[in-house]
């Protein structure tokens, strides 16, 4: 399905979006920032509180000391928040709580104040940290869906699987900063993962389970590379390898989902062009088939109308004893012509592959009887020995095609047997399935090979003086092939003629289920 999915790699891919979670700032600088922020706010708050201490009660002033805690823990997280809370409490205690300018706490209330400040720092920093994490995740998701959308668009512009794999490869290289290789699963395990046995094993796992495997994952985590696969339709798959020297750090689970999504998009895109190509092919074939069927039908109709006029017209003539013989000969000729024509059209259908099957349960006893009815004229004067066991099972076949086969086979047997020569028709049920044989009392097959016998216009060797074009057996062989039954011809063991056998494999022989429905 993936067709020409190429194996390709970009060496030394770029460093990119993997760093989204990390802050670009220097850690020392960050510490300095929060400490100075904390000191500044605490200084301001303390100053204001001292000035207002004559106006406001101590309990109200304590609220002001929440401000530095909220500010620092909201922006810088838990630890700076807790430290700021301690600093606030110390400052409150030292400058405002009597005894002033000592760190001694005289009142149990002040212990509570300190505890509240700690609790606020904890709550605010937690909340802020969660908000920050969510925002950062949302930012990352937005970037990722941009990337997926961009890849989907790029894939849409590619005309073949190789171009699509190249798109995926470039996107993955940019997104992961890894060296990437993308290949068709059928031929790329060895090419993509030859580095070490554990790599090969990880690659096989990724393909078999459609899970990310290899470096840093739970599955063969010590491999050098990371492997993932993407389905292409029901059968095919892409295999993708990511590696970066020895330094490939484990991918975060959320990133794994992301690169898997990218790979899946590529697999789906390749499947779509495969389906589109198959549909185009099918449509053109259907157009061709429809044209051929129409041509066959119109040809058959145009030929049949005058033929029908002749045969049916002759049939309706009043028989004048003086013309009786000529009339009979004309009728016989017209009938043969009609039969020959039907066979020619049938043969054209088989050759064109235009035989539509309608498989149903068929009783061979009935099928043989109907074929004999259709050949009343040819079989009227002959002794026909039927040997069909009463318990012959039904077969799965197309009743109309089987009828054609039997009529041709029995007609052929009549043609090559003497005028009053007998025929034998038998059905045998054995381990290989069902065998239906038609025995004639003609000259036998001579040395003609089976292939010649069933070729159109091919005829047995001993039959030069016989009428016929050799179309009958070609139709038998063509229809039999369409039905999945085999046909063979041999000389009778008693050398009294030829025997043709149709074999229905046991898969076509039906069980006795239908008997329960009687």
């Amino acid at each position, binding site marked *: 399905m993936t067709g020409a999915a190429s194996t390709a790699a970009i060496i030394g891919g770029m460093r990119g979006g993997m760093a989204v979670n990390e802050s670009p700032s220097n850690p020392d600088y960050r510490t300095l920032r929060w400490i100075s922020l904390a000191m500044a706010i605490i200084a301001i708050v303390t100053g204001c509180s001292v000035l207002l201490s004559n106006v406001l009660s101590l309990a109200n002033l304590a609220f002001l000391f929440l401000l530095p805690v909220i500010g620092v823990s909201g922006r810088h997280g838990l630890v700076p928040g807790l430290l700021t809370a301690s600093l606030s409490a110390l400052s409150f205690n030292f400058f405002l709580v009597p005894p002033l300018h000592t760190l001694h706490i005289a009142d149990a209330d002040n212990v509570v104040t300190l505890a509240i400040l700690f609790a606020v720092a904890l709550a605010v920093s937690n909340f802020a940290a969660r908000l920050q994490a969510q925002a950062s995740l949302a930012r990352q998701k937005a970037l990722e869906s941009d990337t997926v959308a961009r890849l989907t668009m790029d894939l849409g512009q590619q005309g073949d699987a190789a171009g699509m794999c190249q798109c995926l490869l470039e996107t993955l290289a940019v997104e992961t900063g890894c060296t990437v290789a993308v290949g068709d699963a059928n031929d790329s395990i060895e090419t993509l993962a030859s580095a070490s046995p554990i790599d090969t094993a990880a690659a096989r796992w990724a393909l078999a389970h459609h899970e990310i495997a290899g470096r840093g994952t739970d599955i063969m985590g010590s491999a050098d590379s990371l492997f993932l696969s993407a389905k292409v339709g029901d059968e095919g798959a892409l295999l993708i390898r990511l590696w970066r020297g020895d330094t490939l750090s484990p991918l975060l689970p959320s990133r794994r989902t992301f690169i898997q999504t990218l790979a899946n998009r590529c697999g789906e895109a390749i499947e779509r062009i495969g389906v589109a190509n198959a549909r185009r092919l099918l449509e053109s074939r259907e157009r061709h088939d429809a044209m051929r069927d129409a041509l066959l039908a119109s040809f*058959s*109709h145009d030929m*049949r*109308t*005058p*033929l*029908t*006029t*002749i*045969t*049916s*017209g002759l*049939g*309706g003539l009043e028989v004048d004893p003086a013309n009786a013989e000529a009339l009979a000969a004309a009728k016989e000729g*017209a009938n043969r012509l*009609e039969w020959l024509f*039907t066979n020619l*059209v*049938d043969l054209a259908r088989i050759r064109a592959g235009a035989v539509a099957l*309608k498989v*149903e*349960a*068929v*009783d061979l*006893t*009935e*099928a*043989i*009887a*109907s074929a*004999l*009815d259709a050949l009343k004229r040819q079989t009227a004067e002959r002794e026909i020995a*039927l040997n*069909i066991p*009463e318990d012959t099972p*039904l077969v799965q076949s*197309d*009743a*109309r095609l*089987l*009828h*054609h086969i039997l009529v041709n086979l029995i007609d052929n047997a009549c043609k090559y047997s003497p005028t009053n020569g007998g025929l034998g028709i038998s059905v045998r049920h054995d381990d290989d399935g069902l065998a239906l044989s038609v025995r004639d009392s003609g000259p036998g097959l001579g040395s003609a090979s089976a292939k010649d016998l069933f070729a159109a216009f091919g005829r047995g060797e001993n039959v030069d003086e016989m009428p016929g074009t050799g179309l009958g057996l070609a139709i038998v062989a063509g229809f039999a092939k369409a039905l999945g039954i085999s046909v063979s011809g041999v000389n009778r063991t008693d050398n009294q003629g030829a025997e043709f056998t149709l074999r229905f494999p046991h898969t076509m022989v*039906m069980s006795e*289920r*239908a*008997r329960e*429905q*009687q």
Partner: protein
Amino acid sequence: MIGGQTILVVDDEMQIRRLLTAALRRGGYETVEAATAREAINAQQRFQPVAALVDLGLPDRDGLELVEQLARDDACAVLVVSARDATDEKVAALDLGAVDYVTKPFDTEELLARLRVALRRTGQIGKPPEPVRFADIEIDSAARIVRKAGLEMHLTPKEYALLTALADHPGRVITHAQLLKTIWGPAHTNDVEYLRVAARALRLKLEPDPSRPRHIRNEPGIGYRLCE
């Protein structure tokens, strides 16, 4: 009594129409000809034929549609005139209400025989059931008894149902789908094997030579026909 009944002949080929008309006249029927579906519908309304012989390949409309429309008139038996290998269209036409088919090239005697059988149906509507007899077989549907040469035969309910379904329209082909629907119900219209098994069992009980059946005749890929 037959003389004077009108038959509608629908075929776009003038030669075939002439041929059919000649054969029908010889059988004592009057004929009306139509070359298109539209003409056929007009003719049916104007002349109220007792039967219509329809070729399915018409220039102006799908022949099957015409069959369905003509067959809506219960007093008109529709017969399809069709090529030997056109099994699918025969089955479709029969399931749409055609009562039988005649294969091209047709034999005049056979054509007239089929037509007589088809017309017999229309004459029988409303009559009380009476024992059906053919050869040495008698079906007493009031008593649900089948006798062969005077001896009562034991038939299973399905065998009896198949026999009566065929005997209701002696001489007419009944499609597999029609028989299966009548006997086993609409869910089983594709279970041809039930029918094959029942038909074989019935032949073993009723036919003088079950491997060369005279009465319960198989039409390959189409259905069954009861012949006397």
